[in-house]
C-alpha cells in the first residue's frame, strides 16, 4: 500500500517534465546539425543545448525516477510507510532547486561545458553547485533507503528482504559510492577554479575522477529498469519470476563490478597506464554477466507465463504471450534494444576496437540506444504500471500506450543505427557543424538526416507519453488495490545471509575500487606539473 503518494508522484512528474524539455532540446540538436538545416546559427547555442540536454537527461531525470520508484518500492514491498518522509521531501527540493540553479548559467551560455564537464574547460560555478545539490539530494535518498532496509531487517529477523527492496538498496548503494568520483572532481578540482581561487586545473586527474562516476552512473540508471524486469514484468503478464536467487546475484554483481571499470572511457587518455586500462577492460567484460543472467531469467519468466496461458511448442509459446499488454510490449522492445546496445558496448570495452570508434558518433549512438532506448522505455512502463496506484484513477488508454511504446522503439532505432554507422565512417561527436559539401563527409549526410527524423519520432512519442499520463490524472476513479511485485516460482523461505545483506559486497566494491583506481589516482596526485591553465567558457566582450 502506498502511503506517501504525493511524494512519489511529485518525483515522477518532475522527472517527466524535465525529460520533456530535454527531449525538445535533443530533437532540435539532431535537426540543426543535420544536412536538413542550412547552417546559419550560432554554434554556441548548440553546446548550450547539449549541456542542458545532457545534464537534465543524465543527472536529473533518472535520479528522480530512481528516487520516486525507490520510495514506492519501500512502501509497497516492506508494507509499511516510509521512514523519513520529511527528509525525502528535503531531498526532492534539493534536486529540484539544484536543477534550476544549474540550468540558469547554462541557459545564459555561461557554462557550455557539456554534462561531462570537460576540464580544463570551466564554466560558471553555479552550474557545478547545482549539480552538487542534485547529487546531495539523491544521497538523502540513498541514506533513507539504507535506513528503511536496516530497520525492516531488525523488525523482521530471519525473513528475506523482498527482492524489489533488496535490488533498490543495491542501486542506491552503488550510486552512493559511484557519485563520490564526480563529487571529488567538482569539489577539489573544478569548483576552486570556477570560483577563481585557482587558475590551473589537473585535467587528467579530474577526468579520472569523473570516470569513477561515469560508467557506474549508467548502472544506476539501469537498476530501476532491471527491477521492473524482475518484479513488475512477470506479475504484469500473469506469470512468475523464474528465480529469486538469480535476480539477487545479478544485482550483487552490479554492485561489485559496475564501478571499478570506468577507465574504459579514458582509453585515448594518456594519463592512465595501459596496464590499468587492460584491468578495467577485463572488469568491463564481467559486467556483461548480470545482463546475460537477467536476459535468461526474464525469458524464462515469460515462458512460464505463456505456458500458464496455454502456450505450446519450442517457440510457439512466444505467440501466446499477452502482446497487447503495454508492460509485455515495453519489456520485449527494451530487451531488443538492450541486445543491440550491449553488443555495441562489448566493442567499446575492447581497447583495440574502441580505437576505431572512440569519440565518434558511434558512442553517442551507443549510449542513446542503451539509456534512451532500453532503460527509458522501462521508465515508461514503470510509470504506466504505477500510475493508477498514485492517482487512484484508471489508466486505460492501452492503444495510445502501445502506439507510444512502438514509436519510441522505432524512433530510437532510426536515430541510433545511422549514428553507429556514421561513427564507423569516422564522424566525430560533440560538434555543431559538419560540412556535408566536403566529399569526405558527404556520404554521411543521408544517415545523419535519417537519424534526425528518428529524433522527431522520439519527440512525438515523448509527447504521447505525457498525454497518457495527463489523461491518467483525469481518468475514472477506482481503487487500484495494493501495489504488488512478482512472486518467484519458488518463494524463498530461508536464503543465505550473503543474499540478504550488503556488507560483503560493499567490501568487495570498495576493495576493487582501491585495486583498480588506487594507483592511477595516487600517482596523478603525487606528480608535479600536471595542471594546465583553465579555459573559462562564456562569451566575453
Amino acid at each position, binding site marked *: 500500500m502506498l502511503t506517501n503518494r504525493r511524494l512519489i508522484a511529485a518525483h515522477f512528474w518532475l522527472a517527466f517534465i524535465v525529460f520533456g524539455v530535454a527531449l525538445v532540446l535533443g530533437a532540435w540538436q539532431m535537426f540543426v546539425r543535420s544536412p536538413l538545416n542550412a*547552417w*546559419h546559427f*550560432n*554554434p*554556441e547555442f548548440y553546446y548550450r543545448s547539449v549541456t542542458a540536454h545532457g545534464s537534465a537527461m543524465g543527472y536529473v531525470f533518472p535520479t528522480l525516477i530512481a528516487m520516486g520508484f525507490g520510495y514506492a518500492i519501500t512502501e509497497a514491498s516492506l508494507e509499511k510507510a516510509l521512514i523519513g518522509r520529511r527528509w525525502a521531501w528535503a531531498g526532492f527540493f534539493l534536486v529540484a532547486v539544484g536543477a534550476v540553479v544549474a540550468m540558469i548559467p547554462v541557459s545564459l551560455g555561461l557554462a557550455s561545458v557539456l554534462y561531462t564537464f570537460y576540464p580544463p574547460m570551466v564554466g560558471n560555478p553555479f552550474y557545478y553547485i547545482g549539480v552538487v545539490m542534485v547529487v546531495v539530494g539523491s544521497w538523502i535518498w540513498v541514506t533513507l533507503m539504507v535506513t528503511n532496509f536496516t530497520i525492516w531487517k531488525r523488525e523482521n*529477523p*530471519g*525473513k*528475506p528482504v523482498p527482492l524489489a527492496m533488496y535490488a533498490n538498496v543495491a542501486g542506491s548503494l552503488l550510486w552512493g559510492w559511484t557519485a563520490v568520483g564526480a563529487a571529488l572532481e567538482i569539489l577539489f578540482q573544478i569548483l576552486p577554479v570556477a570560483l*577563481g581561487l585557482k*587558475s590551473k586545473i589537473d585535467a587528467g586527474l579530474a577526468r579520472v575522477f569523473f570516470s569513477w562516476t561515469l560508467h557506474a552512473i549508467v548502472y544506476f540508471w539501469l537498476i530501476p529498469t532491471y527491477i521492473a524486469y524482475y518484479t513488475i514484468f512477470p506479475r504484469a503478464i500473469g506469470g512468475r519470476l523464474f528465480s529469486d536467487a538469480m535476480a539477487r546475484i545479478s544485482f550483487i554483481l552490479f554492485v*561489485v563490478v559496475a564501478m571499478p571499470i570506468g577507465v574504459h572511457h579514458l582509453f585515448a587518455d594518456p*594519463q*592512465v*597506464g*595501459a*596496464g*590499468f*586500462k*587492460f*584491468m578495467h577492460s*577485463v*572488469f568491463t567484460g*564481467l559486467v556483461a554477466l548480470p545482463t546475460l543472467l537477467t536476459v535468461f531469467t526474464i525469458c524464462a519468466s515469460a515462458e512460464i507465463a505463456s505456458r500458464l496461458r496455454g502456450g505450446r511448442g519450442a517457440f510457439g509459446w512466444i505467440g501466446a504471450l499477452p502482446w497487447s499488454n503495454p508492460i509485455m510490449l515495453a519489456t520485449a522492445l527494451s530487451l531488443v534494444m538492450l541486445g543491440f546496445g550491449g553488443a555495441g558496448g562489448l566493442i567499446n570495452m575492447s581497447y583495440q576496437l574502441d580505437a576505431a570508434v572512440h569519440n565518434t558518433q558511434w558512442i553517442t549512438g551507443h549510449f542513446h540506444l542503451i539509456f534512451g532506448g532500453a532503460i527509458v522505455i522501462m521508465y515508461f512502463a514503470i510509470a504506466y504500471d504505477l500510475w493508477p496506484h498514485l492517482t487512484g484513477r484508471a489508466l486505460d488508454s492501452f492503444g495510445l500506450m502501445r502506439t507510444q511504446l512502438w514509436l519510441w522503439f522505432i524512433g530510437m532505432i532510426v536515430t541510433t543505427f545511422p549514428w553507429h554507422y556514421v561513427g564507423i565512417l569516422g564522424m566525430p561527436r560533440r560538434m555543431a*557543424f559538419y*560540412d556535408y*559539401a*566536403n566529399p569526405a563527409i558527404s556520404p554521411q549526410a543521408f544517415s545523419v538526416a535519417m537519424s534526425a527524423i528518428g529524433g522527431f519520432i522520439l519527440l512525438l512519442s515523448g509527447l504521447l507519453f505525457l498525454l497518457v499520463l495527463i489523461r491518467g490524472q483525469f481518468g475514472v476513479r477506482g481503487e487500484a488495490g495494493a501495489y504488488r511485485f512478482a512472486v518467484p516460482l519458488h518463494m524463498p523461505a*530461508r*536464503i*543465505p*545471509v*550473503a*543474499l*540478504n*545483506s550488503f*556488507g*560483503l*559486497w560493499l*567490501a*568487495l566494491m570498495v*576493495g*576493487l575500487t582501491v*585495486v*583498480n583506481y588506487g*594507483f*592511477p589516482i595516487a*600517482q596523478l596526485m603525487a*606528480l608535479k606539473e600536471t595542471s594546465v*591553465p*583553465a*579555459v*573559462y*567558457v562564456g*562569451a*566575453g*566582450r
Partner: protein
Amino acid sequence: MSDQPLFSPRNPWFGISVGVTAAIAVLSAIAGLIWLPLAQPNLKLAGVWDAICSAAGVPRAAVQEAGVKPDFKTSNVVMTSEMLTKVDQVSIGRGATLAQRCAICHGPQGVSDAHSPNLAGQFAAVTYKELNDFKTGARVSVVMGPFAAAMSDQDMKDVAAYYAYLPRVPSDNLDTGRAAPAVVVTGAPMRNIPPCGSCHGDIDNKAGSPWLGGQSAVYIKAQLEAFASGARRNDISQQMRNIARRMTPEEIDQVAHYYEAQP
C-alpha cells in the same frame, strides 16, 4: 535465513566470492602489467619491474633530442584566460601618464584615424602581449620597437590596464546592419579555417585574441597579409598564419571592412 556470520571462512559465499574476485583481479593485473607489455618488442623493456612501471603509467624521462630552433624570435608571453583581468586603479593611473607618449598615433582617448589600432577598451592581455613582443623582437615594427624597448614589464601592464579601462568608441564607419561574411560566422571548414568569431568575440573570446570591432580596415588587412606572407610571426601556435594563408584576398577584404563597421 542462515545464522552463519557473513565474514567467516566457514561461509562458502564469503570464500568463493572473495576468492573469485581476487583471482580475476590478480590474473588481469599479471596480464595487463607484466605479460602484455613484455609481449610488445617495440617497448624495449629492461625487465619485469620496468614492464610494471611502464604499464602502470609511471612517467619515464623522454629521450632528449635537440629541437628545431626557429630562425626568428618567438613570443615568450604565456597566455591564460585570467591574465590581467583584475582591475587595479593604481596601475590604470600610472598607465594614463605613460600613455601620453602613445597618443600621437593611438589618439588621446585610445582612438584615432591614423590606421593604427584603436586601443580603447582592448583586452589588457592583448595590449600587454603585443608590447612584450615588440620589446623582444617577436613582432617587428620600426615605430613600436623603440617605444617598447624602453618599457619595463610593469609599464606595459600599466599601459595595457589603462587602455582596457577606456570605453570603446563606436567607429565612424559603424554599420551594425552589415551582414557578417561567412568566414566570420562559420569559417571555412574545407580549408580548415575556424570562424573568426569563435576567438575574436561574437561567438566566444579566447585569451590573447584582440577585440576587432571598430578597428581600421587598412590595419586589419595589413596584418592579415603580414600573417599570410610570414612577415608577422608572433602568433604563438601559428594559428593566425595558418588561417591567413588560406584566406582569399576577397575574404581578407570582406573581413577587414566587416570588423571596421562593428561596434
